[in-house]
């Protein structure tokens, strides 16, 4: 009896591996996801969770896309692109059980802006503390801060439910689109009369105009305006920049709206946890598998051809690449309509950011800030007026990096013990503005290093021992972001977050519901609603739409 059972088991095992063998040979899957960015991994994990056989094909030898951390200087882990988390949807972390696979997000304390006159303005998570701090600069602004914070929170409350929803198509008469629009309209109406007007203004006005309504102090405005230009090819006074500010406020860490935190171990920890969740659901990730082209037969996507020449087939193809890379690089234009291609070409995806990752031999001094100020744990800035933000933007318009750049500088190792040897520090410096193309031609190694030197010198003005502490620096301009990370023009959000490219217009009007114009093909990257940032929402939303088309809705997708 016992032997019989054993034999039975062996037989079943053999059968299973035979089936595997056939599948591997044919390289056929239910779904291919192109790109192991965090959105690709999210979509893949949901699809695998619903029982599909999924493979993720990643061009690079490492996964994560812009949600990545790597050791490129011994002993130090850099968050090479994104560096802080807030937007990452908690429902996704929960659905995919990411904590089980090692994900932990640690909230940090506020941030600060150093001023040219040797002072500083800090923001803290404690409301009373922040108010007292603002009062050091303007008693009136301290009073206005409550109003400002309330207004921003109201707007966040309106937007947040939309993050995990497929944007309704206003031109469609399908019941679900009509219901979606109705829900949207009702949520809008529920804002109340005044807030309704404010919402429209908010979505279209400039950050400067928005802040001017509340504050008088230059440094208070500059400190708050920073998030309106991050990753954005707009100045703080350009219409539309107020929304970008909101985009950075609508996240949360464990229910604390607007809070930001570090992923322990760097932002790669998010992608790693997702990949582990995917594998636990039976999915597979293949690195160094660059997709050269999506194969389309009879108007249907049937698989992909890799750069190596290998073909991989699947019932559906999902692209995590940005919309330009997807349709202009990885597809044959004959498979798409002229009209669609024109709109893809016109999609605004101008790069405007750079990044320095620096290994430090110790904690740099910032004489303007007391050593025990907890805001040093947060984001540090050296631009103390809106005017200088605007001037920094002028340089970008003129085709060069800002001579006095805006930096969003952080030292994650003050909280995260895993990223540098004890006593040493990792500094992440996000830089605005850096153009994808320079007025005097293409980027070169020399120009990249000159850009790096500009940033380091700017910081050194506020930290006398900074340069001496530098052990190694990774410098990335939009050129590197495009070529190494795969972000068209180096745009960190896969396309600008302006009103004309949001909601049912993102990425292309009529194609906001994650379906490509070719059947069986979908988009799941940050070019889709609700846009960029390490959020996971595009990936989860796309998976939900796919499962809906496969009539597998309600099988574990968000």
């Amino acid at each position, binding site marked *: 009896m016992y032997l019989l059972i054993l034999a039975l088991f062996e037989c079943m095992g053999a059968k299973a591996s035979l089936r595997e063998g056939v599948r591997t040979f044919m390289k056929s899957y239910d779904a291919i996801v192109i790109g192991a960015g965090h959105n690709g991994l999210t979509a893949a994990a949901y699809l695998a969770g619903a029982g599909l056989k999924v493979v993720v094909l990643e061009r690079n030898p490492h996964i994560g896309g812009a949600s990545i951390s790597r050791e490129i200087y011994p002993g130090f882990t850099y968050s090479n692109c994104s560096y802080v988390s807030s937007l990452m949807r908690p429902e996704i972390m929960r659905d995919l059980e990411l904590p089980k696979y090692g994900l932990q997000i640690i909230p940090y304390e506020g941030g600060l802006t150093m001023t040219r006159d040797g002072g500083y303005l800090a923001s803290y998570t404690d409301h*009373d503390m*922040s108010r007292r*701090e603002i009062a050091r600069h303007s008693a009136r602004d301290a009073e206005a801060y*409550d109003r400002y914070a*309330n207004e921003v929170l109201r707007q966040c409350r309106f937007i947040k439910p939309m993050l995990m929803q497929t944007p309704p198509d206003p031109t469609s008469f399908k019941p679900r689109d009509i219901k979606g629009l109705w829900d949207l309209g009702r949520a809008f109406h529920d804002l*109340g009369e*005044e807030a309704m007007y404010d919402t429209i203004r908010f979505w279209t006005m400039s950050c400067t105009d928005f802040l001017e309504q509340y504050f008088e102090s230059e440094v208070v405005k500059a400190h708050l305006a920073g998030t309106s230009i991050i990753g954005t090819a707009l100045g703080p006074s350009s219409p539309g920049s107020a929304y970008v500010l909101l985009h950075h406020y609508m996240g949360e860490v464990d229910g604390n709206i607007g809070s930001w935190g570090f992923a322990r171990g760097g932002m790669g920890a998010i992608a790693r946890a997702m990949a582990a969740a995917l594998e636990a659901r039976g999915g597979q990730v293949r690195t160094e598998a660059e997709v050269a082209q999506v194969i389309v037969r009879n108007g249907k996507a049937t698989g992909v051809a890799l750069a190596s020449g290998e073909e991989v087939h699947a019932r559906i193809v999902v692209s995590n690449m940005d919309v330009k890379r997807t349709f202009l690089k990885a597809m044959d234009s004959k498979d798409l309509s002229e009209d669609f291609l024109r709109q893809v070409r016109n999609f605004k995806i101008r790069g405007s950011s750079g990044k320095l990752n620096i290994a430090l031999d110790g904690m740099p001094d910032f004489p303007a800030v007391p050593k025990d100020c907890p805001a040093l744990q947060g984001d540090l800035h050296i631009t103390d007026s809106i005017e200088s933000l605007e001037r920094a933007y002028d340089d970008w318009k003129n085709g060069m990096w800002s001579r006095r750049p805006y930096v969003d500088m952080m030292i994650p190792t003050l909280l995260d013990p895993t990223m540098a040897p004890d006593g040493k520090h990792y500094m992440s410096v996000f830089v605005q503005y850096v153009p994808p193309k320079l007025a005097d031609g293409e980027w070169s190694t020399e120009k990249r290093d000159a850009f790096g030197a500009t940033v380091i010198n700017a910081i050194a003005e506020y930290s006398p021992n900074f340069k001496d502490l530098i052990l190694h620096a990774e410098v990335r301009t939009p050129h590197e972001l495009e070529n190494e990370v795969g972000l068209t023009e180096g745009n960190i959000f896969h396309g600008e977050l302006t009103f004309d490219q949001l909601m049912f217009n993102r990425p292309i009007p009529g194609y906001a519901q994650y379906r490509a114009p070719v059947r069986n093909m979908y988009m799941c990257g940050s070019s889709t609603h609700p846009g960029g940032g390490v959020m996971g929402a595009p990936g989860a939303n796309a998976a939900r739409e796919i499962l809906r088309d496969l009539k597998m809705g309600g099988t574990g997708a968000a």
Partner: protein
Amino acid sequence: MTQPPYKAPLLESPLHSRTAPLCLGNEWTRWGGYASVDTYLNTEHEYFAIRNAATLFDLSPMRKYRVSGPDAARYVSRLVTRDVDGLRPGRVAYAVWCDDLGKVLDDGTIFRFGPDEFRICSQERHLCWFLDCAIGYDVNIEDVSERIAAISLQGPRSFKVVQALGLNDCRTLKPFDMTHFDFDGGPMTISRTGFTGDLGYEFWLASEKAVSLWDRLMEAGQAYGIRPIGSRALDLARIEAGFIVPLVDFMPAGEALRPSRGRSPFELGLDWLVDFGKGHFVGRRALLAEKERGRGRRVVGLDIAGNKPARDALIYAGRSKQVGAVTSAMWSPTCKRNIAIATLDRPYDTMTEGLWVEIYVDKERKWEKAMAPCRIAARPFFKPPRRSATPPLDY
């Protein structure tokens, strides 16, 4: 040396050097950015001192705004919903102010010092709103919160303490009257006001003089059983007095993220504070419309069966239809009644029977649900003659 905010996130009241050593249980709470005593040691004893003897409460964290100038009276009249023309210099009035939609931003007290000078006191911060409303008025608005300290002396024997200080003139003060004295070479205002529904006085003077006044009051009060009280004991007294508190019994419209959380004075049961006859005021149009339409809900007092405080309880009409919720509740030791302040949807706010409160009862970490019948009761729950008798009764 002043500490940076990250080392001292909370402000210290001018009386901190007196209240801190007395706060033996070290129980503090935040109030408007200040550290404020929650309980000195024993809430029950502090509460009974309010109803039995005399108490001191540090009221300094209150926001205080000085409104002065030729248009001051017109301005205040425009700001708040009640009539202020009838408010004579030397009088104090309770008032609410609304936004344009007729939703209450806060409540507070208005002190009229002279024809062209007022002081508005409130719990929340309103400088921005007050300045917004001042556009077009020849009026000066100043936040004097930091400069002026306040001590509340409450309890049946509070007048004895006042007398012991030699301030006999207070004998003729009626509720909501105020008068002025010289204290240590500076002005001091005493108003017959308070938040306890009992006999009591509030002292207002320059922050630098607050400690000296506190010491004198404590000394003079020794013979009358005086003791300092924290906000928890005060809260019990205010529920018995039937007063509502913003952020507890309703959301101030300026702070609510959900616009539907705003409450009109009618909904708060403060109809008597709205004077449509006095000319235009902020929120008037919306309130007129609401008066036509009828309010959607109302804040009421409840008398609940049993003795289990109905904190945060839901209210049902019959056994299943949820029609409101309790916002403040206590077993009243003075009235020996189980009382609550609640918001009820219309038309249940006028129901005479059939209302039930769902109470969760902690029986030594074993929770049980009790459904207790309740009925709408008049506020104040506690209204002793000594509250308004002038001259004060001997107690």
